[in-house]
């Protein structure tokens, strides 16, 4: 085979970072060139099995997307036991609530196997607002959409729980 051809096609498009980013809901609205901007924006970090990504109470400044591997989200109880909240796999993301507003992390995250996480942080996003306002607004739209979807789901859940509580109180 011609080495030139093999060189050109060596990296399949599906393996590229921008291809992966396109599959993440936050970046779903971005197109080729804009994805390249995001690609230069995010930080790719490799974690070993059992490594802590962040702890509850850490200052949070951005979100992580799991490119490969998986993480476990948990909170530490007063007696030191860890109670698991969720297990996430490739394509999932977490920490998106601290992307726009500085806040403390409300849970801890530990990597379950050797993983690659893609980090997107507030400082970079602020910089992008200045340089590529179009890209920044699309990313922010994506984040807002997801946060509001979750907020609505949480609201419904609260209503459901309230109703359940009321019926439980009435029955007693």
């Amino acid at each position, binding site marked *: 085979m011609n080495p030139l051809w093999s060189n050109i096609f060596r990296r399949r498009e599906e393996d590229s970072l921008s291809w992966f980013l396109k599959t993440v809901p936050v970046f779903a609205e971005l197109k080729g060139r804009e994805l390249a901007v995001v690609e230069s924006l995010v*930080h790719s*970090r490799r*974690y070993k099995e059992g*490594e*802590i*990504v*962040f702890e*509850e*109470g*850490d*200052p*949070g*400044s*951005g979100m992580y997307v799991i490119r490969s591997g998986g993480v476990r989200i948990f909170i530490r*109880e*007063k*007696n030191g036991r860890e109670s698991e909240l969720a297990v996430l796999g490739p394509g999932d993301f977490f920490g998106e609530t601290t992307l726009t507003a*500085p*806040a*403390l992390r*409300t849970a801890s995250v530990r990597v379950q196997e050797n993983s690659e996480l893609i*980090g997107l*942080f*507030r*400082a*970079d996003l*602020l*910089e992008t607002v*200045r*340089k*590529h*306002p179009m890209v920044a607004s699309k990313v922010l739209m994506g984040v807002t959409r997801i946060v509001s979807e979750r907020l609505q789901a949480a609201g419904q859940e609260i209503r459901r729980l309230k109703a359940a509580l009321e019926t439980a109180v009435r029955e007693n």
Partner: protein
Amino acid sequence: MANSGQSNNFNRVQMLLLFLALTAAIATGLAIFSSVSKMFVLIQEATAGLFLPLLLSLVATFLLNPIIDVIEREKIGRSTCIFIIYSLLALVFIAVFSWLLPHGQGMWQSLQEDLPRYTARLIELSKSVQGYLHEHLPFLDNYNLSARVRTMAELLVADILVATPKSALRIGSIFLLLPLFTFFFLRDGEQILRRCIALAPNRHFEMVHDLVSLIGRQTAHFIRGRIIEAFIVGVVVAIGLSFTDIRYTLLLGVFAGVTNLVPYIGPIIGMIPGLLIALVDLGLGPQFWWILIVYFPIAQVIVDNFILIPILISRVSNLHPLLVIVAIVMGGKLYGVLGMIIAVPVVSAIKIAIIEIHHYRRTFTLPDVIEPDRPA
């Protein structure tokens, strides 16, 4: 006895060994020390000429970065943006130099003639001051003020006359390195910074990333503000002086602008040559008072303190006067006049970094949301 002799012998061997070991240790220590200090000397020598161009190109990067960001928004490549800016700057420089070369020659020659005149006047002044002092404070009899002023003035004049052509040569090398460094800082600065941040361990990466960007933004803002402030003060002084018959208006404006980078002391030093020239050439007339007014109430109080500083410089970077003086003295010890000028901005940048770190930690410890009373 034999026993003790043996122990004595043993002791002697031991002593010898100890002596040898100590000698070896001292020799090794000396060797390490000398090689380390030699290394430091080598590093120092190797980087000696780099300090100034690097610093200046960092400042230039801070100044040009926002402009390039604006152009880049029009979907033009970053390198192209830098080339556009560079060509514009080159045009400006060519224009300035084509104006300056004929004028500058004349100015330089007249300055060479005038400087001794000004210093002579300064010595005369100091003599009259000394006469006054002798009259009122006779115990200062053996303090020769005018001689002291004379040696200082002569040193200064010699310095200016000899060192200016010499430093012109050094400026030549800066002219070569400055655009190069600035180009790469502008083009790849962000990538370089990202690579450096990426070295941080996973656990601290987020915090390092956040702090670096915060500190970077504040420092850039501060440096930019300082330079623009100095430029405007220089322009105001130059324009104000151009209403009078004083010569070297442009030079005096530049001097006032540069010295304005040093707080408290800078402005005072900045107005001395202007006032001296005015006193010698124009006498103590209304023009002298106008020049004094331009220097102090107009340029310093109104323009700088009431308009520029509140707009351009955040209060965060305010330094205590004591710290300013210490910084200037230390900067002067290290890098001479240049060190005096850059010491205060450098210390301010360090202060900004410390305050940002402190602020960062405080922001995140205020809201007490981590420990709500969770049912155990």
